[in-house]
């Protein structure tokens, strides 16, 4: 049985410690639901595909920190070249997790991905040049202590998380909501909060 987004996000929240987290799409929404706000969390929104490169910049600027990127499969497909960028820089603190739910607009109205659900993302990361790449699909693999142990190893690491798609909410009886102003100001607010938390001045 595949993992759930909630199960993984709960475990990562328990294991992250003082790590920086860059998230997007479903992982962002699930973290919001957990009430796990932190000045060291940055959401790539509305910017699908941006999480990995934001995380790369953070990992290079702050090599003493652990940086966790919580990416989506459709987001990664938009910016696959980001795998090569990480391989080129080899940031030891970067740990890249990809929620492979195999749909776009997960939880809203699931649509098929460009790859037809066939891509071996861990295989891509391994071939690109990550230090390690694995696929996790069992509950014991995402236990908080297992994730904490994983984060202590040198990166850049990649984990493909085989997760079930969430039930779709939007359809004929439940139209899509208006996009709020807060969705557009959120990323900047979080960047400024992170800079304050990190004592950034440049």
């Amino acid at each position: 049985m595949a993992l759930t987004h909630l199960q993984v996000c709960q475990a990562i929240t328990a294991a992250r410690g003082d790590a920086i987290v860059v998230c997007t799409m479903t992982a962002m929404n699930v973290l919001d639901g957990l009430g796990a706000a932190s000045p060291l969390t940055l959401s790539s929104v509305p910017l699908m595909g941006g999480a990995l490169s934001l995380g790369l910049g953070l990992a290079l600027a702050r090599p003493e920190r652990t940086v966790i990127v919580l990416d989506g499969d459709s987001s990664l497909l938009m910016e696959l070249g980001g795998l090569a960028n990480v391989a080129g820089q080899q940031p030891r603190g970067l740990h890249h997790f990809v929620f492979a739910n195999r749909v776009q607009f997960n939880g809203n109205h699931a649509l098929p991905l460009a790859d037809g659900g066939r891509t071996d993302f861990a295989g891509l990361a391994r071939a690109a040049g990550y230090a390690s790449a694995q696929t996790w699909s069992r509950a014991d693999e995402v236990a908080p202590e297992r994730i904490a142990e994983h984060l202590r190893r040198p990166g850049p690491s990649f984990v493909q998380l085989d997760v079930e798609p969430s039930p779709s909410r939007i359809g004929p009886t439940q139209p899509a909501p208006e996009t709020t102003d807060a969705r557009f100001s959120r990323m900047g607010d979080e960047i400024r909060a992170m800079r304050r938390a990190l004592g950034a001045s440049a």
Partner: protein
Amino acid sequence: MDRPDRAYSVGATPILQAWRAAGIRWVVTVPDFVQLSLHAALARPDSGLRTITTANENQAIETAAGLHAGGERAVVMMQNQGLYNCLNAIRALGLDAQVPLYLSIGQFGREFANLGDDPRRSRRRMVSLLEPVMDAIGMPYFRIESSADLPNVARAADAAFSRNGPSAMLIGHYTAWE
């Protein structure tokens, strides 16, 4: 061989000096043919700047924003066609999120007959559309058309880092190997 177009080239060394003076420590780039001598100067061990090459311009903008979030200053080098490629990343990070994004953009493909003239009157859309596109998104830019324009390097940096938004210096012709 002395070529008349050299009058429109600006040396890599003074640009690097201006970047260092502006507190820039990182270069994020999809390499630009117009700025080849600048890339070569950056590759020298004593350049004082670290270069990150990315696969496309969205990733370059996002990586620079990540560096900013971590407390570092970067310049993003790309071509004019690269700017067209990364408008959404600039919208998201430079405009909506108000992250300082300092770009150095080469006017690739510019015909020599247009040197010394207004790049908006270039016969090549890749050149002539650049400034109108930046006007459309409210992004300030500063031309580097000869050595007399070197103060624009610092002005463009200040426009990004003081305003907390995107700005660009536009390299009008091949940078000089000096």
